[in-house]
């Protein structure tokens, strides 16, 4: 069982990332927050392995299982609550950059959930394909190909805007 200060450190380092990952899967901020709560209750109850290659990957594996269990329990609700894109990225001072961030959120929302989650793990959590495969318990080649599909779709969806913004 982690000490209170360790749990606080884990929160500071990973809570936002874990929340956005959960939110991308369950597509509801309220449910993602509940799952984040469950995630920390679980963390308070277990001991983290002493030597972790990648703490974020280890924690995301736990979060992924929680999210998959949630999806199994709420299969019928998933489609109903995925109408609006979630706010994933911080506001940018530059209006063009902020517009681009909102468009990326919208494009992410249009990706299939399995491609979106892998794009998020790769781009914003910095995981390797091996780690992604481990987090989601899928073959490495599947992780790599889903990522490629996701990037190509994002490229297509953002092309006109991205071409305008690019220097």
């Amino acid at each position, binding site marked *: 069982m982690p000490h209170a200060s360790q749990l606080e450190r884990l929160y500071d380092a990973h809570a936002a990332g874990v929340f956005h990952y959960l939110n991308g899967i369950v597509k509801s901020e309220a449910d993602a927050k509940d799952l984040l709560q469950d995630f920390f209750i679980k963390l308070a*109850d277990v001991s983290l392995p002493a030597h972790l290659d990648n703490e974020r990957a280890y924690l995301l594996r736990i979060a992924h299982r929680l999210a998959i269990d949630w999806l199994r329990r709420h299969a019928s609700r998933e489609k109903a609550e995925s109408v609006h894109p979630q706010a994933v990225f*911080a506001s940018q001072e530059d209006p063009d950059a902020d517009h681009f961030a909102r468009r990326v959120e919208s494009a992410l929302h249009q990706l299939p959930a399995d491609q979106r989650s892998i794009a998020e793990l790769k781009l914003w959590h910095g995981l390797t394909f091996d780690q992604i495969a481990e987090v989601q318990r899928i073959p490495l080649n599947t992780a790599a190909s889903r990522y490629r599909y996701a990037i190509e779709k994002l490229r297509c969806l953002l092309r006109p805007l991205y071409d305008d913004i690019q220097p």
Partner: protein
Amino acid sequence: MKTPFDSFENDLQQLDLRELPAHWKDEILAKAHSAPRRRFAPPRPLAIALAAAWAVILTLALLTPSPRDAAVAQKPPVFAPDSLFALNQQLTRSLP
């Protein structure tokens, strides 16, 4: 497997994830600390199966004679010398 990003991926990666509302931290950590600790408990079907298995094992153990009892039962009866003497006398008396 680490693959290099192209410029599009780099631009995406530059976007910072939104921070969580500050008050969530205290709320979530307080609940995490005060939540009752979970003890190991097998899933209900497994618990029922285990209980049934133990009931069968105990029943069989009670109904099956132990090997020592079986060995004793197979041995010919051993008579005490007094009993043998009395039996001998009875036989002698009964003979013509």
